[in-house]
């Protein structure tokens, strides 16, 4: 039970793509926040978090995503979420964070 993060920078779209593999929980959420913001500070661009390999997220993980969102907004950049599995999409629905984040492939974009 851990978290691996695959990082890519799409030069054509000037977009950071992060693919978290595993679980974003109290043990791993600070790793996600550090990794994403480190890359963002080095090269400012919009960010896509692709949830295709994400199995689980808890409230500390949501907190990490909210911190990332705030930092990007201060710099007038956007964060997108995509390919969220139904169990994770449900957590965004319950917490109404689906209204705060742009979830790709849905009407909210």
């Amino acid at each position, binding site marked *: 039970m851990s978290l691996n993060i695959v990082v890519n920078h799409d030069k054509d779209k000037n977009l950071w793509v992060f693919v978290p593999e595993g679980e974003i929980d109290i043990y791993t959420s600070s790793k996600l926040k550090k990794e994403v913001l480190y890359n963002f500070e080095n090269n400012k661009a919009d960010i896509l978090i692709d949830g295709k390999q994400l199995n689980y997220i808890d409230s500390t993980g949501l*907190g990490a995503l909210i911190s990332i969102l705030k930092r990007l907004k201060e710099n007038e950049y956007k964060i997108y979420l995509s390919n969220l599995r139904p169990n994770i999409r449900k957590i965004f629905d319950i917490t109404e964070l689906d209204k705060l984040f742009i979830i790709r492939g849905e009407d909210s974009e």
Partner: protein
Amino acid sequence: MNRDRIYLQIPKKPDFISLVRLTSSGIAYTMSLNVDDIEDIKVSIGEACVNSLMLNNEDEISLLFELDDNKLSIGVSGVREIIPEELEERKERELGLLIIKSLMDEVVFNEDGIRMIKYIEDDN
């Protein structure tokens, strides 16, 4: 009434919360709960443990699983419904409680912590 009890105690460290989630899924699976309910239990117990870890001063978190024919009840020690105003992660903790209350069928707070219940539906 067929009530079996399982006790689990973990050190108050983030390292062991995934173990609790895994154990809970296993227990729920043996009770023939459906996949969605098992996921709800796993998420809720994870949130309860995070709450206890952040808001309680004990060295350990104690869990009690009570297995009935028609329901699974889970008690987690040290979980608090009232989040201190000054806590930096206050918003996160409130999200955690919201998730638990949304996913479980019954949630009761008492002086020891929290008790959460998931009922087993007939169509499982």
